[in-house]
């Protein structure tokens, strides 16, 4: 990703807004943008979702492949999660091999899903040591107006929840739903104008400092954390955003359940 020059004016403006507890687009500090979730919108994918958060738009598609289980885990299938931010998504995203930014994006979303244990990799085994399903979750950004992390995570878990194992096409029995035992949800906080806000948009990211990504599962269990970018934060600051993440993750989980069906 090309690094845009950030004017000192933008940073000063964000600082001033923060001092009045305001944000660029009029939102409250912990308020997210309007979020829309659609499912089953990619006819060639075995599971799919589209998430719109303000002007940020992403797709998630699930495909399955047969794999040979790893020798040390003969009874398990696999999960692969790739995030691609191609130059279609914004003027600062560049073509070429994956940037450090998009590698981090993919790995942080991947960990949140993987570490929650929501997919029982043992249930993906077809013949121990010989054949198992590999779940491939592809995250694809169409429009980046900030906070791709949460948009990807939300689209990703929704796409998985709608996915169907294409057993018939691969001639290994009848098609069946991919079972998810829980719904890990990521909430991201960005330090803007010297205080953390939820769901920063692109301009806030541009004039901001560090960001913190929290993935919570059922009963507020923590499954994944990541601090990104240059910046220092205190234990008190962290406690505050963790509290907020507990609330917001519950709301987003409700959204997924209402759209996909529990």
């Amino acid at each position: 990703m090309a690094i845009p020059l950030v004017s000192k004016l933008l940073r000063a403006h964000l600082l001033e807004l923060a001092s009045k507890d305001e944000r660029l687009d009029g939102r409250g500090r912990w308020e997210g943008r309007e979020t829309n979730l659609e499912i089953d919108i990619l006819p060639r994918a075995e599971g799919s979702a589209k998430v719109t958060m303000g002007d940020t738009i992403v797709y998630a598609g699930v495909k399955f492949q047969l794999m040979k289980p790893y020798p040390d885990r003969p009874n398990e299938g696999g999960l692969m999660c790739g995030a691609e931010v191609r130059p279609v998504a914004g003027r600062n995203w560049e073509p070429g091999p994956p940037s450090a930014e998009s590698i981090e994006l993919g790995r942080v979303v991947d960990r949140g899903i993987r570490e929650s244990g929501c997919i029982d990799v043992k249930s993906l085994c077809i013949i121990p040591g010989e054949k198992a399903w590999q779940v491939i979750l592809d995250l694809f950004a169409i429009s980046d107006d900030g906070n791709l992390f949460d948009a990807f995570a939300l689209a990703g878990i929704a796409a998985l929840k709608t996915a169907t194992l294409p057993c018939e096409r691969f001639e290994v029995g009848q098609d069946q739903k991919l079972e998810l035992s829980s719904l890990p949800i990521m909430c991201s906080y960005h330090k803007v104008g010297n205080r953390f806000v939820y769901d920063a948009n692109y301009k806030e990211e541009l004039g901001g400092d560090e960001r913190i990504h929290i993935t919570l599962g059922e009963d507020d269990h923590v499954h994944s954390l990541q601090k990104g970018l240059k910046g220092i934060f205190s234990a008190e600051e962290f406690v505050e955003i963790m509290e907020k993440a507990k609330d917001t993750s519950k709301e987003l989980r409700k959204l997924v359940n209402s759209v996909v069906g529990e």
Partner: protein
Amino acid sequence: MGGYGDIEMIDENGLRMDGRTATDVRPITIETGVVPVADGSCRMTWGTNDVIVAVYGPMEAHPRKIQRQDRAVLDVRYNMAPFSTTDRIRPGFNRRSREISKVTSDALESVVLLEMYPRSKIRVEIEVICAEAGTRCVGLTAASVALAHAGIPMSDLVVSVASGKINDIVVCDLNKEEDNYGEADLPMGILPNSGEIVFLQMDGDLSQEEFQTAWDYNVAAAYEVHKIMIEALKNGGVN
């Protein structure tokens, strides 16, 4: 071109498996403004094809060595999303995508008035979200709509259509099954105002007579598709 001619793709009434006549085009929709952060954009569905195009620019071309003193540089990329086909496509370098990007760029360079923006760059990003058959035609057509939506001056829009041959019969706008068993494919990029050509490829086997028929079908279809493009731009306005 597979050329397995034992499957009947056209019935006794001259209708194709999806009910179209030889000259019918698949259903088409166009929506502009679908990438809010871009300077111009559109989504085009054409049969089951689903293609999104974003345009960025004109903006400063850098590094400076790619700048042209007398005109803008056009930077066109065609790409298929990993989930756009039945078998997943691995991200990364791909000879087919590189070639389609190049011929699409060549076609668009023929109509975009690049001389109006010296030393600048215009980026055209074509993303195939769902592929059926004829994605290069959909991409090129949608790209000219997105350029218009971005307010980039052009001498004309480009309409791209492909005709082909199945069961020894020439038909317009092959769908996926027809493409799998087809014996030839002739995609063209046509300027609807002058009838001139900016894009042409073909492979397979066509006699001179069949070739002429396929050519004529493409030109006729281009005028129909052009109407839908104009309508979408009227509705969506220019960014």
